[in-house]
Structure formats: structure tokens, C-alpha cells
């Protein structure tokens, strides 16, 4: 039994994977830049993140169409079908991560010209973890690495813990000084966006395991 037939389907699936990988890279870069814009108070960078989200949205549509075409024309089944079904779901997760990057960049713009209520320490740390998870979820997707995907669960726990810590700390600021309420709430939002991004990465990890093994596994 040699694996040499259905060359065209193979090529289509490779292309689908590489486009999905590309979307993953764009989205991860958007989150990094959004957080950098916040930390460095760089409004220009924030605007760039917002502008470039269109690219991500267009790519999502392109990938969705590609999935539809492959299903209609090639009648994939079994692992091929699981891969396509998973791409469908993964791009939704990625698109939402992209939207969170836009949300963070928008907050950067709202903060412009005002000092932050506190120096940002845990938020960049959370961002680093969440983006690391996102990149690894996409690497697991590319390399069909269920083990790497499975490990995302524990890393998500760490992000959740940090989000909780940041929130608690910011609550204390906003109780101390009502003038800081709006900015503190904005930073709480950033923490919750980053926490959501990590959740999306674990969702992607679950799809990777489904593609590989055909099993539904909860990893967070």
C-alpha cells in the first residue's frame, strides 16, 4: 500500500495548511505588536495593527473558500476530512485572536497621552506566554504534533493564574483611587483579552489532536 495516489488532493491540502500557518503567523505578530504598542505607548504601531487586521480577515475568507472547494471537488474523508474540518474551526479561533489584537491596539490609542496607572510587568509576561502558546499551537498543527498540543493545557493554567493576579492587583488600584477607574478597567480588559487568546490557542491544540487521532480531547 504505497501512498502515492490523489496527488492533487495532497497538493490542495498542503496549500490549505500553509495558508492556515500564514494566518497564524500574522495573528501572532498582530498580538505582539498590539502589546508592544501598549507598553511603548506607540500609537502609530497600534494603528498599523488595526489597519492590518483586514489582511487577516481576508485570509480567513480565502481559507474558508478553499475548504469548501476541496470538499466539493475532492470528496475528502477520514484524516483528510478531519484536517479540513479543523482548519474551518482553527481560522475562526485565529480570526478572533486577531480581533483581540485590534481591541488591545484600540486601548493603546485611548491611553495615548496619559501615564499608565502602573508599570506593566505581568501583562507583557502574559502576552509572551499567550503568543508562545499560539505559535506552538500552530507548530503542532504544522507538524501534526499531538504531544505539543496536549502540553498547551498546563501553559494555559499559568496564563489564567497571571490574569487573576493582574486583575486582583488592578482592583486594588481602582479601589484606592476612583480617578484611576477607567484606566484600571482598561488594563483588566487587556488581561482578559490575553487570557482569551491563550484559550483560543488551546482550542487549536484540541483540533490538532482531533486531526491526528480522531479523538475529542479537552486540554484546558
Amino acid at each position, binding site marked *: *500500500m*504505497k*501512498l*502515492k*495516489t*490523489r496527488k492533487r*488532493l495532497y497538493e490542495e491540502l498542503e496549500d490549505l495548511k500553509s495558508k492556515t500557518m500564514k494566518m497564524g503567523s500574522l495573528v501572532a505578530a498582530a498580538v505582539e505588536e498590539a502589546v508592544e504598542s501598549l507598553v511603548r505607548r506607540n500609537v502609530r504601531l497600534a494603528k498599523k495593527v488595526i489597519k492590518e487586521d483586514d489582511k487577516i480577515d481576508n485570509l480567513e475568507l480565502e481559507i474558508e473558500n478553499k475548504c469548501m472547494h476541496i470538499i466539493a471537488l475532492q*470528496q*475528502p*474523508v*477520514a*484524516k*483528510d*476530512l*478531519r484536517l479540513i474540518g479543523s482548519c474551518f474551526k482553527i481560522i475562526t479561533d485565529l480570526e478572533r485572536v486577531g480581533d483581540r489584537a485590534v481591541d488591545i491596539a484600540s486601548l493603546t490609542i485611548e491611553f495615548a497621552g496619559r501615564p499608565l496607572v502602573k508599570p506593566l510587568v505581568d501583562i507583557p509576561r502574559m502576552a509572551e506566554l499567550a503568543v508562545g502558546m499560539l505559535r506552538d499551537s500552530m507548530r503542532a498543527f504544522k507538524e501534526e504534533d499531538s504531544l505539543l498540543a496536549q502540553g498547551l493545557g498546563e501553559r494555559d493554567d499559568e496564563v489564567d493564574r497571571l490574569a487573576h493576579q493582574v486583575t486582583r492587583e488592578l482592583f486594588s488600584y481602582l479601589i484606592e483611587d476612583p480617578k484611576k477607574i477607567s484606566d484600571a478597567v482598561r488594563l483588566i480588559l487587556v488581561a482578559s483579552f490575553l487570557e482569551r487568546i491563550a484559550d483560543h490557542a488551546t482550542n487549536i491544540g484540541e483540533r490538532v489532536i482531533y486531526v491526528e487521532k*480522531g*479523538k475529542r480531547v479537552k486540554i484546558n
Partner: protein
Amino acid sequence: MKIKLQTKKLNVWYGGIHVVRDFTIKIPEKRITAVIGPSGCGKSTFLKALNRMVELVPGARVSGKVILDVKNIYGKDVDETEIRWKIGMVFQKPNPFPKSIYENVAYGPRIHGMAGKEKLRRIVEESLRKAALWEEVKDRLNVSALELSGGQQQRLCIARTLAVNPEVILMDEPCSALDPIATTKIEDLLFELKKNYTIVIVTHNLQQAARVSDYTAFMYMGELIEYGRTEEIFERPKNKKTQDYVMGRFG
């Protein structure tokens, strides 16, 4: 779910060639079970063994059991002709008799001893209705069956099978000689027929197996490799060979 037909360690040889090997399967009642596998894997022989038609092949030898309800059809006291009424078969190429449409359907019941013109007429109509052909032929029952299109001829053959009141219908590639529209009609018909009959269909067309069947059996080199609910076989097959086959990755 009730098991209608099952095989236990079924083996078939053609001369010295071992075609079906230790095949054990339980086929549920009023469901469609598809048998898939590459050419020469023994699917058609397996199907023919289910109603003893295989015994008509010179040099064929069978061991093991095929149990219809509770009775081994290869038992000593079993009349194979009666078994072939109860377990009917539809073939790849439509093979109507060179007689009228009416006679094609009436032939079986008549030699089966169902006499009476009115009774026969009723059986013919009912069978043609069940085969979704009645509306197309009711005004020309005396026309030769050979004037029908391929798809109509195949439905006529199904009507002919139904006329003798079978419990199980075996189908060997029933659509492979038909165009897509005729194929769709047969597939719709299968869906209706499974309300009353147990159907086993052998097909090369994987999409057809996926569309019409409730259960799928994958056969390779005479053996049953994997058997399960159709959605499982096409979504997450357990066996590597099954996966390669349904994904079309057999070299």
C-alpha cells in the same frame, strides 16, 4: 437492534484459490450495509455466498455458516432455491428477461405458485410501486422490458426481486452501469426500501457507500478488515488499511 443475517467463519474457495477468509459479520435488520474494498478483494464472492449463489460457480467450495435469523442457510435440510427467494439479488448490469415489463415482474411469483390473474396483477403493481417505477410504466406494461432505459431496467430488476417477497436484498454494484440521475433514483429507492428490507450492497463507489449505507464493511484480500457505522469508517477509521483505502491512498 435485531441481527437479520450473520456469517461465522465463512470461507470460499474457487478451486485452489481462497477468496473469502474467515469472514464473520453481523448484518442488522432493515439497515443498509455496504461492503467496500479494492477489485478482487472478494466482495462479490462474499455477496454471492450470502444466498448460496456462489454454489453455481464451478469449482466453488464454501465452509462456515451464513445464518438468516436463526437458521444456517448452508444446513443439510435447506432448499437453496427457497433461500434465493428470501435473499434476493440485484446485479451490476440490469438483466431483464426479453419479455414484457409485466412478465418480468410476474415471472417469479408465478413459478413460485402464486396463481390467480388478479392476485398477480396486484403483486406486479405493488412491486413496481415499491421500486419507484410504476408511474413511469403503468401505461405500457406490455411493452418489452428492453425498451426501458438502463436506470428503469435496473429498477425493474429490483421490482422483480421484490415480487417474490424477499427479506434480504443483495446488490452487486447496482449503479455502476447507470448515469448520475438514474443512480440518484436508485439511491433514493434504497432509502425507501430499507424501511422493510435488509440490504447489503457491494460498491466500488465510496461516495455512494458513504451516502446510502448505515454500516460499512471494508474487505481486503478476502478478509474483513474493519466494520462499523458508516460515519465512523469515513470519519475516523481505526485500521490503517481502511484509512488508506477510503482516503484513496492505495497505490
